[in-house]
């Protein structure tokens, strides 16, 4: 029976060891959620690719439709990428200098808001030039994909702002901050793909 007990003990010891290394629930949940989001955007992007490849006359964007502001959006893309770098630095500083970390997080949120606002300005201009949901499949896919991304960006800004306010109030939950960061990085990383596929 003694060998039996030692197997038992080693099992319990192993379980204790693995439980210490576990990924927190909210982080794991967010990773799974982001995976489904990636599939959602993959669906949209592949649909867009097919529409682009099979467009009547083989001209994209279709005749009479405005070109997308490639250059201005390149600047905007840089702003969004910058926000991820700021947040990354904020995360690193969290362990050593919380005050400076919070400043970086605030800067990341500001970049996010700037990105969404500039996108909004761009939309207004495009609508004036005659690109709408119903003007062509080009317009429909543009507003669908970029709009879906904008909604995600707004959600990320709200989430990170909430985490920021909670931290300012002295309630720092590391796993919640980590989960919000994952979502933020997802919003940032999916954008260059959209930019390359939809704008260029």
């Amino acid at each position, binding site marked *: *029976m003694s060998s*039996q*007990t030692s*197997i*038992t003990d080693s*099992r*319990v010891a*192993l*379980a*204790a060891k693995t*439980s210490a290394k*576990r*990924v927190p*629930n909210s982080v*794991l*949940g967010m990773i*799974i*959620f982001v*995976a*489904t*989001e*990636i*599939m*959602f*955007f*993959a*669906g*949209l992007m*592949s*649909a867009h690719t*097919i*529409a682009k490849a*099979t*467009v*009547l006359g083989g001209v994209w964007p*279709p005749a009479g439709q405005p070109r997308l502001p490639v250059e201005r959006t390149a600047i905007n893309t840089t702003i969004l990428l910058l926000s991820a770098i700021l947040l990354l630095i904020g995360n690193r500083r969290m362990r050593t200098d919380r005050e400076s970390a919070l400043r970086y997080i605030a800067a990341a949120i500001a970049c996010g808001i700037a990105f969404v606002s500039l996108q909004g300005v761009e939309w207004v201009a495009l609508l004036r030039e005659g690109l709408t*949901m*119903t003007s*062509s*499949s*080009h317009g*429909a*896919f543009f507003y*669908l994909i970029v709009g*879906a991304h904008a909604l995600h960006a707004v959600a990320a800004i709200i989430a990170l702002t909430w985490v920021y306010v909670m931290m300012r109030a002295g309630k720092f939950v590391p796993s919640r901050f980590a989960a919000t960061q994952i979502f933020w990085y997802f919003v940032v990383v999916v954008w260059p793909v959209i930019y390359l596929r939809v704008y260029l």
Partner: protein
Amino acid sequence: MSEQVQHAGHDHPEPGFFLKYCWSTDHKMIAMQYLFTGMAMAMIGGFLAYVFRMQQGFPNHYVPGFGLVTPGRYNEVVTMHGTIMIFWVAMPVLIAAFGNYLIPLMIGCDDMAFPRINRLSYQIFLLSAIVLLGSFLVKGGAFGGAWTAYPPLSASGAYNLTPIGATLWLLAVALEFVAFLLGGINFTVTVMNSRAPGMKMFDIPILIWMIVLATVIFMASAGPLIAGAVMLLFDQTMATGFYDPVRGGDPLLWQHLFWFFGHPEVYVVLLPAMGIVAEIIAVFARKKLFGYKSMLYSTWGVGILSFVVWAHHQFVAGIDPRMANVFTVTTLLISIPVAELVFLYIATLYGGSIRLDTPMLWALGFLAEFLIGGVTGIFLGSSGTDIYLHDTYFLIAHFHYTFVPIAIISVFAGITFWYPKMFGRMMNETLGKIHFWGTVIPFNVIFIPLFMTGMAGDQRRIYSYAQFAEQSRPALQHLRTTSTIGLLVMLSFQLIFIFNFFWSMRNGKRAEANPWRSTTLEWTVPSPPPHGNFAELPTVYRGPYEYGLPGRADDYWPQNAPN
């Protein structure tokens, strides 16, 4: 972990009716909410089947309880039957109800990882069911463009004649997907993070593995369908042209996005059903599950292959024949791991000391009927034969030989098996056996004639064959009528189950903690389990299928028994 221990020891005041039954975060109560909602929806779905089978069996006669079935009403009824049975019966009962009830109990923890998200998941699901049922009442009626919602039929109210119903249908499906995404995240995180100490990967009961894999498949495939559904919603409501070829869209695009989800969905509901059957077979054969790891790897194989077979639904839709060849090969490939699973079940039965209690009858019924479904699928998976058989009643019969075992037979297996745990009473065995034979025999009477009418050329979704000269074939009418009579018999036997289910709740023999003498953790707690499940959180010492061990007093060795 310390949080859980504290939680289990808490003394809760007895909550009021609303808090207890409608606002609970207890996984067992949420499972019951899903189970009862799913059963109610099953009755509605069954009633709809009765309506259109009556129209097929006795064309253009008054249907008792419904009235005259007009072409438009026929379309609504078949669409809603398919939608309800797949999305509001199979999914909530097999995954949400059994998953919620069994995951924490079988892996040895007190509740889900996110209990409040769990409650929210059910509430969104309930809302989706209300939206769907509400669509029966709007102007034009419920959606009548078939459960696959192909555009242009689904995209334009001028074609499907149910403009409001079509939008509500999309909305209901979207809400339901949100509910199951929340639930799926919860399931996966719980199983990864909350297992009892000592429960390693290969000590997890196969049912839990299969539910988790099913939710992973669901979450990986749902995204593209949601993307497609948003586009369809815009086509319906904002006059965009995503699926309109005249305006640069492509109707085939929907079929790809839909079936990219729709085919994995088949395995999303199949896997939990296979899991339930595996648990029951091991217990009632008193034998270790044959090839636990092979079973697991086969299941992974099914899950991965399920993502590359979808275009076999589109062989006649005008896809490139070379692509059809590829999808024929992948489709036939996926039958290998599924057949492997069935062989493993049969190998488990071989040489066991089999007890034929009601749950075991259902489990064996599942194997036999599902086998017919699988074998007939080979003809539909081959692009050559599919060109003839596509959209005939052969397909309907094949589909129901897979889905009735999944959504009906395995659910009955699961309910009769875990009923003592859920309600603390045993169900009546005699009534259970009558119900079993009264369901399985008429089930074959319904669908074997439909194989024949399908091979003779009967197309599906036709409200009256007499209206179409090339579809008429009066010589087949007796087969159509036989099928309808089979359904009437099968439905009337369900009353026995409903009676047994509710009668046993009060009058059944009191169930002990482990009436089936099973090894898994849910049988170590009292029946029904108290709030917090385990008085003391268990430690796991061995795999879940230690039966028929020589040299031990009992023929089973519970997972949590130190020696």
